[in-house]
């Protein structure tokens, strides 16, 4: 069994979870910012800034006959419309006659980066893929993903009334869509996908008859058409070159950031390292899993249950930029084998092949983990993934659980001077709200759950254009990824505690006491009373998806109380209430005997952001348990797994 390398340990150090959340969130929202602009908000911008946004190649008309767009959102919608018209002009005109506007649902798709369209797990997978494949500009991926989602509805679109089309499209999550198909055809190989569509449209009438306008009689051809291009795609997968990321310095999402690679890069080629380690270590499972899914789809088997949901996203967040010369040097020397320490410049330099290889490998890794969990679930309804097994799959191949998201995040929001691993220094830095490099912002972020439009002044060039709830929602997804990271970190620490906690007994007591494994020394920076963490995968026995109610419980004793208090935006010993700018808020605090929930509630004006359990459990036991789960904690037992994913029906508790 491999133990995480020092780099990996440093990367996954739970001390930096909040940094990573902030960094990821900040970068994601930077990139999405243009889409939040309205004509009014654009008009209020300085002319130069406005021009910079609208002159971005991402928002240009497709042809000379189209007038310039009013807003970036309108531009993307129009470009999507062009793609869709190219796919089937008749279908589009038929829909347009019925007042069917892409804007109706694209607003949500694009502004929230598809995070309401899929379950939180799948959203993390999709985001990882987008960030890996398009580290500098997401617009291309967004268009292609939107297009792919749209045409998965083409049966409905062509057969049903506009009202039914809208009903289908405007009521996510889209459970019937395989996230792997979205990733493959929308992110990794969109051009091949569209090329295959184009070829099909030039084929004889039998197949082009799938075109909606020819009427219901021709509809049976459509599925075969889809299977057709899927098999083509499957045939060309491994050799084809994915779309080159459209790196654009003019992209509004990149403005205001330091783009000096030399300042960020620790040296070495992470891309190569990723590709080599991913391919050399375990080329088969990832690809096999993919092709298995592909073949399932070709057979017409709905992959949404057969394979898609057996992937579990372990989106972890690295310490970005590694930020210290010592770890930089070590990362450059070891990036070929472990590579978890990355920088944005490296991420930007990732070749598409490397991205795909890394993603494939990661998928394979996740698939393996899923298989382990599946087996465990078959033996008993409630899965308790032992420290040993959790740790083993996480450490087997550190580089493949490497987060894409983390490298997107590019830069630590905190000062490099606090690189010292000493807790006291770190805590000092945290408590120094006057710190120049974002400490106060981070505090705001935690307190408001990102709710305040002015909460994060550093990068918010246009605070008025930020939408409280949406912002928080996007952040919430990022935060969920960080929760998974916490679980990973905890599991990694467990590798040194295998003997004492390899045997897990009663699952119920396990759930109540995640520290049952006993005391062991955790790697590096171990606190006085370290305890082995445990990753609990909790599933109803009748569920198809062992991860649908994923509970990632991580013992975070390594995190000082002050640190977490800062993270959660609360005073020690008090429950925290996040209040929105307009004061209309409700507080929801969910308490368990074992720890705390962090809840990111995205309900309208009831956005309580991060609520935490009163800290008595912490001050009493000095133990922190971060509990991640999807769904409402109060009703978890009453709700089946599907409902836990069904976001429109209720709150979404991400932690």
């Amino acid at each position: 069994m491999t133990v995480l390398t020092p780099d990996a340990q440093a990367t996954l150090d739970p001390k930096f979870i909040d940094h990573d959340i902030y960094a990821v969130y900040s970068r994601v929202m930077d990139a999405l910012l243009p889409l939040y602009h309205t004509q009014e908000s654009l008009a209020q911008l300085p002319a130069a800034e406005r021009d910079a946004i609208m002159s971005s190649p991402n928002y240009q008309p497709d042809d000379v006959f189209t007038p310039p767009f009013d807003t970036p959102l309108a531009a993307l919608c129009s470009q999507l419309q062009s793609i869709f018209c190219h796919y089937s002009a008749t279908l589009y005109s038929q829909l347009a006659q019925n007042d069917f506007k892409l804007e109706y649902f694209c607003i949500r798709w694009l502004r929230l980066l598809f995070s309401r369209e899929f379950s939180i797990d799948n959203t993390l997978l999709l985001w990882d893929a987008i960030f890996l494949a398009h580290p500098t500009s997401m617009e291309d991926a967004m268009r292609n993903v939107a297009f792919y989602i749209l045409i998965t509805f083409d049966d409905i679109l062509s057969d049903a009334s506009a009202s039914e089309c809208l009903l289908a499209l405007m009521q996510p999550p889209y459970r019937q869509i395989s996230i792997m198909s979205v990733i493959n055809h929308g992110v990794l190989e969109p051009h091949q996908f569209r090329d295959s569509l184009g070829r099909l449209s030039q084929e004889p009438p039998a197949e082009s008859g799938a075109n909606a306008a020819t009427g219901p009689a021709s509809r049976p051809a459509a599925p075969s058409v889809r299977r057709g291009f899927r098999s083509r795609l499957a045939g060309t997968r491994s050799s084809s070159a994915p779309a080159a990321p459209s790196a654009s310095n003019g992209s509004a999402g990149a403005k205001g950031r330091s783009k000096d690679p030399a300042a960020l890069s620790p040296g070495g080629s992470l891309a190569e390292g990723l590709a080599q380690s991913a391919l050399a270590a375990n080329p088969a499972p990832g690809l096999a899993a993919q092709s298995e899914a592909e073949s399932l789809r070709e057979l017409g088997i709905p992959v949404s249950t057969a394979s898609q949901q057996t992937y579990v996203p372990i989106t972890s967040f690295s310490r970005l930029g590694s930020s210290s010369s010592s770890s930089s040097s070590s990362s450059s020397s070891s990036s070929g084998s472990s590579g978890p320490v990355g920088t944005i410049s490296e991420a930007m330099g990732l070749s598409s092949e490397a991205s795909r290889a890394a993603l494939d490998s990661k998928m394979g890794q996740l698939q393996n983990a899923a298989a382990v969990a599946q087996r465990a679930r078959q033996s008993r309804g409630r899965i308790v993934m032992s420290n040993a097994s959790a740790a083993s799959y996480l450490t087997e191949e550190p580089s493949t659980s490497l987060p894409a998201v983390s490298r997107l995040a590019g830069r630590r929001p905190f000062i490099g001077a606090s690189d010292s691993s000493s807790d006291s220094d770190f805590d000092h830095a945290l408590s120094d709200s006057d710190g120049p490099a974002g400490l106060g912002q981070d505090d705001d972020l935690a307190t408001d759950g990102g709710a305040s439009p002015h909460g994060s002044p550093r990068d918010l060039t246009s605070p008025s254009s930020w939408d409280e709830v949406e912002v928080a929602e996007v952040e919430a997804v990022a935060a969920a990824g960080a929760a998974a990271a916490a679980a990973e970190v905890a599991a990694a620490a467990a590798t040194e505690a295998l003997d004492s906690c390899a045997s897990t007994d009663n699952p119920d007591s396990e759930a109540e006491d995640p520290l049952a494994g006993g005391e062991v020394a955790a790697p590096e920076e171990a606190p006085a009373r370290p305890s082995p963490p445990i990753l609990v995968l909790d599933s109803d026995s009748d569920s198809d998806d062992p991860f649908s109610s994923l509970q990632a419980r991580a013992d975070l004793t390594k995190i000082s109380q002050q640190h977490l208090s800062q993270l959660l935006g609360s005073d020690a010993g008090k429950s925290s209430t996040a209040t929105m700018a307009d004061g209309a808020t409700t507080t929801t605090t969910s308490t368990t005997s074992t720890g705390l929930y962090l809840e990111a509630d995205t309900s309208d004006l009831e956005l309580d952001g991060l609520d935490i359990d009163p800290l008595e459990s912490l001050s009493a036991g000095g133990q922190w348990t971060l509990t991640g789960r999807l769904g409402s904690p109060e009703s978890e037992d009453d709700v089946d797994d599907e409902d836990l994913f069904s976001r429109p029906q209720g709150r979404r508790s991400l932690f």
Partner: protein
Amino acid sequence: MANRPTSMAVSGNNRSFFQYKLVLLGDSSVGKSSLALRFVRGQFQEFQESTIGAAFMTQSVQCSDGTTVKFEIWDTAGQERYHSLAPMYYRGAHCAVVVYDISDASTFTRAKSWVRELQRQAPPNIIIALAGNKLDLSHSRQVSEEEASAYAAENKLLFVEASAKTDANVKLIFTRVAEAIPKSDAATAAPRSQDTSSKTVNLGEEDNRRKCC
């Protein structure tokens, strides 16, 4: 979907089935989505997610005269940032339900401005209902029923106080709108199917109105 008030989807010659576009408007967090969800699915979510752009759903109601009215409900986002998108949703709407929160006076002010905007820019024959939501919070009421009722009467609005949480009067809102529309339809607007004479007349009226505004 109908995209103009005059292209009301009326199926059958007996005119027993009508399909109308209804738009829910109002300030943020007054309960538009909750009302819609209660009406359409009979559910209530304590923590309803913020609407992004708009949500869309359909539900039918039976009117006392035996007709069935199917509403295509556009549940719009209340946040101010979406204000500029509102015309996209109320364009072509046959009816609008303007929602406010009885425990928050500012939302009533906002509702009034929505009513003004609709009277100015929405299709001329649009039926507007004023709905005071969160009746379950009447102990912290800030908008009296009399005040709202008087305002509604003055502006020829339907008026209902309701609670999506307790399901009080929710269906009543939509039923009253449904009952109001066909009459209004017969009197002024023109259905797609027949009555060409009244259609001609009404189009003229519409044109006149546009000119004066």
